[in-house]
């Protein structure tokens, strides 16, 4: 009831904050340039001759997000703490959870918007051939969920410090772990340990966004993958609330 109204108010304010600074525009332009460059130049979209976006377009997303999502999320709490507005926000008649969710949703919607703006690539592939749009939609959903997981991690690091640069660097490192856990060279390295270590390989790779994103790229909407991203988000937001409470308790 009331909770959603509060969350909506906060989300609206945060979205406004993105677009009243150059951050939003810089972010979107860079994201789109990267997508275009990697899809057509590095990913070899034309040379492949495939009516699909998975190996030319979505393949790069875990890596783009590695730098871009922490950049979008670093200010969420760090800025509030630096300017002192956190004292205003958390003494309003709202719960800390509502504030956390409201802020997270704003950034997530913003990332979703940036992702939607890649639609010319979708138009291109539809113009040139007849791809399975279900698979593409699935890829978009997966990509957005993955962005949400990165973003929630950035929320934690942003709540930890009042310095945005520190927040950015720490969350890049954490997100890098999420990627590398499923990165083929790392997996091979671990497999080199021998068969008795297979459980370790499984455990580590199950934390990887790449492993969980793969299904989406192929058009498989697996509930386990969805659950993985959602649980990373929930766990991270919960950690954020613990950190915020810790600060206030002194």
């Amino acid at each position, binding site marked *: 009831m009331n909770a959603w109204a*509060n969350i909506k108010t906060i989300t609206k304010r945060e979205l*406004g904050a993105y677009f009243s600074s150059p951050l939003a525009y810089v972010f979107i332009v860079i994201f789109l340039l990267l997508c275009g460059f990697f899809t057509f130049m590095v990913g070899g979209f034309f040379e492949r001759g495939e009516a699909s976006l998975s190996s030319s377009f979505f393949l790069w997303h875990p890596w783009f997000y590695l730098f871009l999502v922490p950049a979008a999320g670093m200010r969420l709490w760090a800025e509030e703490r630096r300017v*002192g507005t956190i004292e205003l926000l958390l*003494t309003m*008649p709202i719960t800390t959870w509502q504030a956390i969710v409201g802020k997270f949703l704003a950034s997530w919607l913003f990332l979703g918007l940036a992702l939607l703006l890649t639609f010319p690539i979708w138009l291109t592939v539809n113009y040139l051939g007849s791809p399975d749009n279900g698979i593409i939609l699935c890829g978009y959903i997966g990509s957005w969920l993955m962005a949400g997981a990165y973003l929630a991690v950035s929320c934690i690091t942003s709540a930890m410090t009042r310095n945005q640069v520190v927040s950015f660097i720490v969350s890049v490192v954490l997100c890098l772990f999420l990627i590398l856990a499923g990165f083929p060279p790392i997996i091979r390295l671990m497999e080199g340990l021998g068969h008795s270590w297979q459980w370790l390989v499984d455990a580590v790779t199950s934390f990887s966004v790449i492993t969980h994103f793969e299904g989406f790229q192929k058009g498989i909407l697996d509930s386990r993958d969805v659950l993985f991203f959602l649980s990373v988000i929930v766990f991270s937001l919960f950690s954020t609330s613990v950190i915020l409470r810790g600060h206030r308790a002194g």
Partner: protein
Amino acid sequence: MIKVQNLAKFFGAKHAVDDISFAIERGEVLGFLGPNGAGKSTTMRMITGFIPPSAGTVTVGGFDIVQHPIQARRLIGYLPENAPAYTDMTVLGFLNFAAEIRGLRGAGKKKAIERVVEMCFLEAVLHQSIETLSKGYRHRTCFAQSIIHDPDVLVLDEPTDGLDPNQKHEVRQLIRRMGEKKAIIFSTHILEEVDAVCSRAIIIDRGKIVANGTPQQLRQKSEWAGAVTLRVTGITGAALSQKLGQLPTVKRAAILREEAAGVTARIFPRSEVNGLLASSIADAAQGWRIEELHTEEGRLDEVFRSITMPDTADKAPAK
């Protein structure tokens, strides 16, 4: 409206606030005084629920701030220290946000915003980004935010800090006017504000309450309260001092200045003869002429110094 009981806050081994209790009723303006670092802001942060107390309770309008934070916070308007505001927003956008998060919508919201814009003189900067505002405007914007929902309880941390004298005057008027219907607690280290605005004042030092009373009562604590300042001609300082020393009402007489215009002395009464001192001195005037004679009311700054810096109390400012 506000009830603080045995409130304490420890940061590690440091006792920022150490077992303080007080209450504020509707219609009261409580001045919260103390040197920097005495625990004023920490106390206010606990009252508003920003930081949880280490011990003790705060209830606002009957709601415990820890058990029922949302209900309690609804009643509170809060101006934090340094008046933070979202610098990327316009003044109007910021007030809109504050109104919405307080549950105001539609016509009620519009009216609330109009009211605070008028009260805080924000008309001219309504569409300006907060980033570009001068400190005075920024301060008033944050102040406007705190009264937008017409709260029963106002917690103001240094509301006049950084304002120019005219703005200070306006804010004090505003606080006094609102104090008639609300319970207000505000911190300051400007003592004249206490006289201008407060119905009651609390002095806090190193986390403890060291004085609590009306400004009048606090002034009575001054060593100067009831002392008489006297300027006479036609007598030397030494002779005057000797004469005064013989009066039964006089505890001590200090010669402040001896010059052509006359001798100026400050005379401290024996405590039991309140009010009789000036007339007894007037009666004793023989062979010398009184140019000036008045009873001191006691001075808050001297009380403040003597309470919060006991070691240096005897070096009270000579003026």
